[in-house]
């Protein structure tokens, strides 16, 4: 293993250094923001006049909001960046530089070569991405300190960041093996990463089944829930469309004149989606799906390496 780690470092030192710098930079920035926000919260006096502002979920909207949004966005694209930068060159560079015939012959078996070549890089990549995964998680928990984070910014922090990196590595490996040239494979990979990101959003209902969400009592209660759609119930209990609900609401306001309408005369909105307390289930389901997909992609890459000509 140490020998293969050394080989990985010698062949991909630029890429590994870049990934390490990106992960460390993002983790440091997110960690600093988390510490700063927590220190502000710790200095809050519950007895002071501005105690309500201290506990507001939008406490850091103006002061830290932009920096948190920027780091969260970077964390969302980080797994795909790592996957492409480390995954694509593994096979593509060997084929492009015509060194594949030598290295595959020296390993005895092409599949063994691929496994030993990919495993150390994958382990290092997953370890490295764990740093920003934890730091961004802490930053978001500090940002929404008085709310349930739940499914908010799902995929940009915690375990999903690590599993997405695994998927992106598999994707990069397969694209590199398929195209066999570094830059074209990277360009195709960038396009496919956008498609994969959209695809993960579209497939989310598979691991985020919809159920009735708790009624909104306070503004931040549904913060961590993933809302999908609403259904409406008339005051007589019948299910109605959104348009009918709006018409009923308007009629109730017209009847009430300048006063507030009687709540019993208003239609009820029932939100459907995934409540925030389902976060652990969602993580387990998505991780299992992505792990299977990543292994499938790596298996396909192995099949390609096994069958392709080395030049």
């Amino acid at each position, binding site marked *: 293993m140490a020998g293969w780690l050394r080989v990985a470092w010698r062949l991909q030192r630029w890429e590994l250094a870049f990934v390490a710098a990106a992960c460390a930079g993002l983790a440091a920035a997110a960690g600093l923001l988390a510490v700063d926000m927590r220190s502000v919260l710790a200095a809050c006096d519950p007895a002071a006049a501005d105690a309500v502002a201290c506990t507001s979920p939008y406490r850091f909207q103006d002061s830290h909001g932009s920096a948190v949004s920027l780091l969260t966005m970077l964390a969302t694209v980080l797994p795909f960046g790592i996957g492409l930068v480390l995954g694509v060159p593994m096979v593509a560079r060997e084929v492009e530089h015509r060194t594949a015939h030598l290295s595959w012959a020296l390993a005895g078996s092409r599949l063994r070569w691929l496994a030993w070549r990919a495993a150390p890089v994958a382990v290092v990549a997953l370890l490295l991405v764990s740093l920003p995964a934890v730091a961004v998680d802490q930053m978001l928990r500090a940002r929404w300190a008085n709310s349930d984070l739940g499914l908010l910014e799902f995929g940009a922090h915690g375990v999903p960041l690590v599993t997405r990196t695994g998927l992106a590595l598999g994707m990069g490996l397969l694209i590199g093996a398929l195209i066999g040239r*570094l*830059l*074209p494979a990277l*360009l195709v990979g960038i396009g496919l990463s956008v498609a994969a990101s959209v695809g993960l959003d579209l497939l989310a209902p598979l691991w985020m089944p919809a159920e009735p969400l708790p009624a909104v009592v306070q503004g931040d209660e549904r913060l961590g829930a993933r809302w999908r759609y609403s259904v409406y119930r008339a005051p007589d209990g019948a299910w109605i469309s959104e348009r009918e609900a709006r018409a009923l609401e308007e009629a109730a306001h017209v009847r009430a004149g300048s006063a507030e309408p009687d709540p019993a005369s208003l239609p009820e909105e029932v939100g459907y989606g995934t409540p925030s307390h389902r976060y652990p289930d969602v993580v387990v389901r998505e991780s299992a799906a992505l792990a299977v997909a990543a292994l499938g992609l790596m298996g396909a890459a192995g099949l390609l390496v096994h069958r392709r000509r080395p030049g």
Partner: protein
Amino acid sequence: MLGWLRVAWRLQRWELGLSIGALCVLTVGALVTPMTTLVGSDAWMTLLAFTLIVPIVSGLALGVGIVGREIGMRTGHLAWTLEPRRDRWLLGRAWPVVLMVGLPCLVLSVATARLIEHSGPSQAYQLAMTGPNVAFRFVLALAVGIGLGAALRRELPGLLVGLPLMVGLVAVIGVATDPWLRANAVMVPQGEIDGRGFVRALTFEMAERDTAGRWVVREPQCDSPASCDAAYATMTMVMTAVPPAMHGPYAAVEALVALAGVAGFGGLARWAISRRGPD
């Protein structure tokens, strides 16, 4: 002339094909989107964002390959000896790429100009998404890619260094030109805004005309709903925006930056390949 075009295509057909394909897809998207989706929808914003990103990524990916690949594959010594001078080889390799991708960039900029015209004047960075600026950014990224590919002698490291460098350059251009654009901004009443030609709305404020007929921003003075209604009725919402007359000077700035990039990074590439031994 045709020979260089053929060489560029044969050596970088994947990169050229993907870049031109992506620009064509964006152009079609920019033409179709106003007919199919609402102004300011996600599709509009995504298209405009890709108009900023794709020329830069294409320029870098094509640029790092021109010298970086020749050195990395150890074919440089052969390619350079086939030309009397190495800098002539560099020029011969670069201009077909500029031509083949720069033209689709210009076509895309015409399509996005239409998109921005429809979307109204309140989106930032719109100046860089329209007119020849799209092509200038591509040329700048290409020059950065060529220079880094030659200096680092490998494609992927060149690309990895080039991406943050280009992001930094774009940010610096934005920050540096902002005070100048603000100084040249004009005030336009909201009722006279149709989005045509106006880009980068800087502020929306309540104002009224002074005795000389100029717009003066004032805070409405009122202490009750009725007096506020009366105060607002005498005032007009005005937008401070960069006028169409600034498109030309801004494009000149972008052209100068691209030219400086070509001179600087092209010079770096020329220096790097002229001092390399025939390995």
